């Protein structure tokens, strides 16, 4: 059964080789899948369109945070959509997890359900990644004040209530921290849901460099210092 009141947002940048499989799998459970193509040059947009996804195209590459916000803006304009799922394009998330997170959001009525790797299985996670995530988690807890068990997990469910207040200004990868900060600031209700992650050779090669953690912290600090126009 596919869910009609739920939209899945897949930010995508040069994922032409895997996006077809990811979208096909998503379409088994979700009617509306929105791909935000963030200026891909490998024809990802055409592949996604062929797979039956709604495609929004950034003509220039802006970053994952900006791509998500474009998806949020689109969904905000579609009043019949009650829940929105954010889903990474590289196939590291499980569609079953996404569906059960939507069910959880619906049943409990919380504004945000965050995927958490601690409860689920993490297949093929490199050791340095684990250390880094632990440090990142400490940072996230400290800066947002939320008692999180995982951070920077791309799988999330937001309801309309959350969608109204979440406006991402972080265009890069710091958007995940920004979402946490916005949850805290607007006192949104939230829950974590155990999810499993598949670290494939592809997702590892596409994944962020560990040094990018420094960039994330830097972006967040810079955002605090510079007033937005």
């Amino acid at each position, binding site marked *: 059964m596919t869910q009609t009141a739920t939209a899945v947002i897949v930010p995508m940048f040069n994922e032409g080789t895997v996006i077809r499989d990811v979208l096909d799998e998503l379409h088994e459970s979700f009617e509306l899948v929105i791909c*935000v193509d963030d200026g891909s040059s490998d024809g990802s947009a055409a592949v996604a369109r062929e797979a039956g996804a*709604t*495609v*929004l*195209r*950034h*003509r*220039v590459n*802006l970053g994952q945070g*900006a791509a998500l*916000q*474009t998806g949020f*803006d*689109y969904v905000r*304009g579609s009043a019949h959509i009650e829940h929105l799922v954010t889903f990474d394009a590289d196939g590291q998330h499980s569609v079953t997890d996404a569906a059960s997170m939507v069910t959880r959001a619906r049943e409990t009525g919380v504004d945000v359900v965050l995927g958490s790797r601690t409860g689920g299985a993490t297949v093929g996670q490199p050791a340095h990644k684990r250390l880094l995530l632990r440090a990142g988690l400490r940072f996230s807890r400290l800066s947002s004040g939320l008692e999180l068990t995982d951070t920077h997990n791309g799988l999330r469910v937001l309801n309309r209530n959350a969608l109204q207040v979440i406006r991402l*200004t972080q*265009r890069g990868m710091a958007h995940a921290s920004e979402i946490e900060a916005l949850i805290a600031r607007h006192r949104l209700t939230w829950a974590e849901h155990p999810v499993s992650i598949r670290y494939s050779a592809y997702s590892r090669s596409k994944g962020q460099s560990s040094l990018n953690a420094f960039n994330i912290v830097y972006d967040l600090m810079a955002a605090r*210092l*510079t*007033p*937005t*126009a």
Partner: protein
Amino acid sequence: MIVKILLIASVLVVAWWLLRGPGRGGRLAATRLAGLFLAGGAVVAILAPNAVTRVANFVGVGRGADLVLYVLVVVFTFVCLGQYQQFRRLEEKLARLTRAHALLEHEVEGRHDSAVGRDR
């Protein structure tokens, strides 16, 4: 040394200036005035190098060249941070524009497809 007070004060002014956010005409005018003042100072310094040394001595710096270096550091920092802010604002505008374009393009394609009776 007077120069220490002046340099610290100028750094504080720069910091305050940058944190204040995008100003309107006043900020631009002040930046232009500072530019003209620097240009004027440069001409004077070229014509009368000894004057720079005298000013340096007055504020407690040994050589005029050192004073020029100090001023240069402050100005450079100011310019860098100002450019950085400007750049960030420009990027923000680019993001908004790209987003609006993506949404508009999708809307237009949808209308076109329904006009020619294609199923999406």
